[in-house]
């Protein structure tokens, strides 16, 4: 019985294993020769979301898709593209969701307005509390 279950599980796992044996794209796990370009690529990769993981950037994930995206970022940087061009290209393909870089837009303005409000509230609290004595 247990053997059977094991076999079934192994069978179920096969397609997964087959997918993983595809070799990763060359620049998924290789750095660019030029350290300045690599630093640029690294900085960009840290702000791009791995779409198949939970809360990880493509710079720290083993997911095949993250590897492909790293490859894309590196060859495009090497070809002389600007990081922000690559970001907008990716955002066009995968939506705003792919970028961690906070951008002010119709759907994100509270993310900027609220911290600003917090600064004002903090200032108001100090003002009220210390006005009399200071």
């Amino acid at each position, binding site marked *: 019985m247990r053997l059977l279950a094991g076999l079934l599980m192994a069978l179920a796992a096969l397609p997964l294993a087959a997918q*993983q044996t595809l070799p990763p794209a060359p620049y998924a*796990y290789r750095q660019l020769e030029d350290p300045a370009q690599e630093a640029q690529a690294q900085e960009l990769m840290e702000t791009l979301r791995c779409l198949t993981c939970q809360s990880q950037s493509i*710079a*720290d994930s083993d997911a095949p898709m993250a590897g492909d995206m790293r490859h894309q970022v590196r060859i495009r940087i090497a070809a002389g593209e600007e990081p922000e061009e690559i970001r907008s290209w990716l955002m066009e393909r995968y939506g705003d969701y792919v970028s961690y870089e906070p951008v002010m837009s119709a759907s994100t303005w509270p993310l900027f307005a609220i911290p600003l409000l917090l600064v004002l509230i903090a200032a108001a609290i100090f003002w009220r*509390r210390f006005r009399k004595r200071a």
Partner: protein
Amino acid sequence: MIAEIGLAALWLAAALAALQLVGGLVAQRAGADAEIARLTRPAAILQGGLVAVSFASLLWVFAITDLSVKLVAANSHTAKPMIFKLSGAWGNHEGSMLLWVTVMALAGALIAAVERRLPEKTMQATLAAQSFVALGFYGFLLLASNPFERLAQPAAEGLGLNPLLQDIGLAFHPPTLYIGYVGLSVAFSFALGALLTKQVTPDFARAMRPWILGAWVFLTLGITAGSYWAYYELGWGGYWFWDPVENASLMPWLAATALLHSASVLASRDALRVWTIMLGVVAFSMSMLGTFLVRSGVLTSVHAFAVDPERGSFILFLLAIYIGGALLLFALRAGSISEGERFSVASREGALVVNNVMLSAILAVVLLGTLYPLLTEAFDVRVSVGPPYFNPVSAIFVFPMLAIMAVGPLLRWRRDSWGRISKEVALLVALLLAALVLFGLLAEVAILPLLGLAFAITLGVASFLPLRGRSLRRAPLSLWGMVLAHFGLAVALLGMASESAFSTEKLAALGEGDVTSVGPWEVTLEAVEPVAGPNWTALSGRMQVSYSGGEPVEINPQSRNFWAPAQQTAESVLLTRWNGQLYAVIGTQAPDGRWQVRLWWKPLVTLIWYGGMLIALGGILALIGRVRSDLRRRSAKRKGAARRLEMETVK
């Protein structure tokens, strides 16, 4: 039979919680000596005992692997080592909720048994609040997640043998955090009790303080351990991802830190009454919110939450009642509580107010960044909020807080002048500027890590200044606790800033015999060999690594394939030197036969977790110091009372 005992004990405990609630409420109208009101304390104590019996029953059915219990069949296995059978009891939804109410009931029993310094009526209101919260969670357990449910037909064998969960760190990480979460429920109950009776006194803060300290120590340890686990297990060298699950533990910690400081002001100066109450409410609210985020499935997707709504809605409902109710009570009563003693800006209290506001603002930023994507997802707009948002936005409040944290402890209570500590301030400012110039000019560090390095060094020195001119042996333990905790934060900050500023990364494709280097290390891949474990096979790299030309050391990073369930994990190797860590991972083989190897040299990275441990140690020292002086005060009071009695009989 054992499972039924556990369930019966749980129902009885819930009934006692109801009695406790009624008793505590009646006391508010009829006075503390009403017959039913006097049952409040015994009900709390008995309830603690019953829940302990219930939890012990759960441990027992897991220990003997009683496969007729649904939870055991789904989460355990006869072949598991005993320690993981036991930890399996709380490594699942139902069991972890039972652990939650167990900690909560035991905490309630303990305050009912020992806490005598508050007016009896306030104590009864506190116990009523504690039972009110507990009742919701009893309901959740008994109606929506019964851990003792039987199967009609006992299972032949259990299902749970997930190798990844059989990790000693993972076995104790959740209970550590839970104890922290639930410990804050006591602070919450004290706050509600004080609001109900309008008795916000230094005694109230003193009664609450050991609980905040204890919960805070557990939260600190839980977060530190969780971060280290992510660091070595995920194989990419990251230690904090601003993941909602991580934020769920950080938010109660931030609130508890603010509460701790505010309660200290209330205990020693009878000021900041309203703040303390509010933070007491907020801290446990953050715990409940964290539990909701982790337990409801809302994190994988808002829509996944809607698919299995029963549990999620139940917790959301509890959340709304408790947080909403507590805030409502706060809004109604806060106006009638006076602020307490006044103080000037240049005073210990003034500095603590600034820090409390800053901590609350950081908390608000983390809360916003965590909830906002969930909120927009409900409207089908997907937004990513990650490190590029959290780091700079929280920094707006973190660095002012660190600055005040350096000088605040040097100020005197109530009224002081900056002139008195001008020498110390000048020293610290000079240190800060020197560090900024040094690292800014020599190392070209980015702005946040640069500020981090400079503030870490300054705060590291500043944290010991409160000890100046004191006899080190006679300084009270709680002072040492503060010094250590503040120093620990500086140490952790230095680790984070250094990791971010000075790490070097090397991704290399290496054939057998190839050499590469990362930072001061030279790395030779000698061979890659297959190895097998009990439920995995692995490719193990044999590498010789040498630190700046020194004696080579062999390390063996592995790429493991588990077969049930099929899963690939990278077993990274961490080689620690006093000044940092070498982090090595071996990946897959490229078509040309070379191996993909990832290497990092992370200077001072280990300080992050040593710092976390120092912070917790500081908390432990403060806790011991406070409890000891409480006990001493109590025995002095008793002796005084005895002597007075003696005098009167002599007369």
